[in-house]
């Protein structure tokens, strides 16, 4: 009998097992549930029910809008920070980068809770009373606060790799500071922008812990929806999950996340 020799290929067996049981099988289960009814007969009723229910559709739109605002806010805040940090000659710049990253290492539920308490404290003042009911505002602030490091880091690492002499070359060729920014800095930091967007946009559509805690349970995003349905109706829950998958796929495709594979490499942490 031939004794099977250990080969390098066998190292991927643990992952293959993981892949089968935790990725492929669950996907099939979701697919199965999404397109069956309570009696386990194949049916499109979930699909039709989802797209004919205005509350469900508006939840998707709300989730998208919240995610979009969060992403844009993160980008606007993170870009200058990353740019300044990457180009500064500070010896201690690692410390400053750590200051932005450190919050990521503190438990996320704890941070959101703390933020809620801060909001409550501010809302005591009569001038700030509007905060109590500004559920969407608070949700977005919380998400920006949570996901900002995920935007800063890919931007920072991409900008760090831009050769400083390119800025000089642009100025040398007559480019003003604005030209240099739009025609050199932005295109060259695009991989970082894209990976930052993917790392902020997708979680902020599904992370319902933030919206639950800061939105007085009045803000429902798509992630919350899925969670709730899986308590009562697995079939509908699976359908919502599939719709989310489609939205994610679509937005990644739109932002060019698939074809620029090569450029994005290394921009992710």
């Amino acid at each position, binding site marked *: 009998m031939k004794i099977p020799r250990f080969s390098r290929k066998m190292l991927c067996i643990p992952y293959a097992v993981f892949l089968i049981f935790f990725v492929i099988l669950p996907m099939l289960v979701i697919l199965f549930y999404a397109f069956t009814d309570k009696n386990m007969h194949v049916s499109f009723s979930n699909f039709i029910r989802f797209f004919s229910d205005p509350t469900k559709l508006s939840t998707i739109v709300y989730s998208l809008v919240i995610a979009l605002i969060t992403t844009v806010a993160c980008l606007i805040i993170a870009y200058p920070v990353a740019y300044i940090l990457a180009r500064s000659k500070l010896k201690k710049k690692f410390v400053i980068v750590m200051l932005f990253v450190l919050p990521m290492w503190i438990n996320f539920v704890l941070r959101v809770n703390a933020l809620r308490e801060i909001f409550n404290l501010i809302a005591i003042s009569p001038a700030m009373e509007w905060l109590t009911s500004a559920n969407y505002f608070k949700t977005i602030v919380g998400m920006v606060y949570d996901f900002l490091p995920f935007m800063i880091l890919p931007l920072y690492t991409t900008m760090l790799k831009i050769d400083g*002499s390119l800025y*000089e070359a642009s100025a040398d060729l007559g480019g003003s500071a604005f030209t240099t920014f739009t025609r050199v800095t932005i295109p060259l930091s695009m991989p970082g922008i894209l990976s930052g967007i993917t790392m902020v946009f997708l979680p902020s559509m599904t992370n319902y812990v933030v919206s639950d805690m800061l939105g007085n349970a009045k803000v429902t995003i798509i992630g919350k929806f899925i969670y709730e349905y899986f308590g009562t109706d697995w079939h509908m829950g699976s359908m919502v999950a599939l719709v989310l998958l489609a939205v994610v796929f679509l937005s990644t495709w739109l932002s060019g996340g698939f074809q620029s594979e090569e450029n994005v490499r290394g921009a992710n942490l």
Partner: protein
Amino acid sequence: MAEHIIELQNVTKYYDDNLVIDNVSFYVNKGEFITFLGPSGCGKTTTLRMIAGFDLPTSGKILLNGKDISLLPPNKRPVNTVFQRYALFPHLNVYENIAFGLKCKRVVNTYENDKGEKYSKKEKLSKAEIEKKVKKALALVDLEGFEKRSISTLSGGQQQRVAIARAIVNEPEILLLDEPLGALDLKMRKEMQLELKAMHKRLGITFIYVTHDQEEALTMSDTIVVMADGVVQQIGTPTGIYNEPANTFVADFIGESNIFNGTVVGDKKVKFCGKTFACLDEFENGEPVDVVVRPEDIRMCPPEAGALVGEVISVVFKGIHYEITVQVGKYELVINSTESRNVGEKIGMTIAPDGIHLMKPKYTTNIFDGVITKRNTVKFADGEFDCDVTQLYPGSHIDEEDYLITASGEKIDLTDVPVKVEVGLNDITISDDAEAGGTVGRIISIIYKGDHYRLIVRTEEEEEDFVFATDDLWNENDIVSVMIPKEKIKLTLKNSEEKK
């Protein structure tokens, strides 16, 4: 007289606290090919960057066509740079890279309206104009048909050409080239040297070129500016600098040379290697001088006819000549000749008067500012040395409590007294044992002087230089400790009020 396109007036530049350019002044004529030549860290690139506008001078002025541009940002200067590592935009293709400058450009066009009034508008260049210019630039660097290529698919030489095209397409008044050929292999480099020179002729604009390669500088330039340590050592034509080096640094850096210590012994007569020679330079009788003799200026002859007689100790074939090393007494001479000799052969040598070049020595002694410590040692140049403090007051001595007692019996505490420290060129020795000497430094210069080496050791913190002669061969950049015998340290009080 030619027009000065660029003029530097007393330009000094500090990076943080480091002096990189020390009061440099010179001018560049319009249309000239000028080269800044020097070892790395000599300030040549910084000088170029100040002309481009990437660095601003700490003090002094840079004039362009007589106008002060010292503080003008780079995008407002009519100069373009070819960067050391090209700095091509990786996200743009060849065409877009070259067109970058043209797209930034605004030209003033004059029009006439219906009423016949003239008015001018600042406008972008049209697409067609840009395309015409880019095509022309690509043709100039022999890269026709490369428009759509991505930068990352080009070889080093092609990237080099794109970088040149990107700069000259803007028709700058001055083209700055920062070691542009450094990344190419030898053969490619030689080709590009000639091409650049031809391009300079064709374009007729001023080229300012930076390199550490003396051969490149000699090949290409109309004028060479030799720099070292942030100071201009010599400015001249390639032949002028080669034949009449201003000091031992230039003589040693450009071409090969035999450098000796000599003494002037009469009218146009100099003594070195134990013999007296006629020369062309006039110096005062008895003055110590540095003597430079190029290897090709030494003629070989039969022993009985030679002014110097020596034994051949090595012969190396160098392609077009032989490099022959001859031992004359304790001196070693290098000769370049098309004739060969055998090792061990006795030969005579003559040197024509115009082959002997005399220079005032830059260093005659080492002088430092120091202070006396409470242990009666002297502190200077990052270190502490044993010394004899009694020389400060004639006839004095040290008592058992380490106080100085003068001849008149006065008791003096010398702690923290500032003194001038003088050490002769032959009184310093070095060791690679860091603990052995009074201070530690790095060897920054080694010049062979026929029978000994002249070294310069620079301390890290205060950047004080020790200049001295040694028989031993060391390596540049070695970290060594400096030893000075106690009795060789000459001290004098700095200000006479201290004497009281």
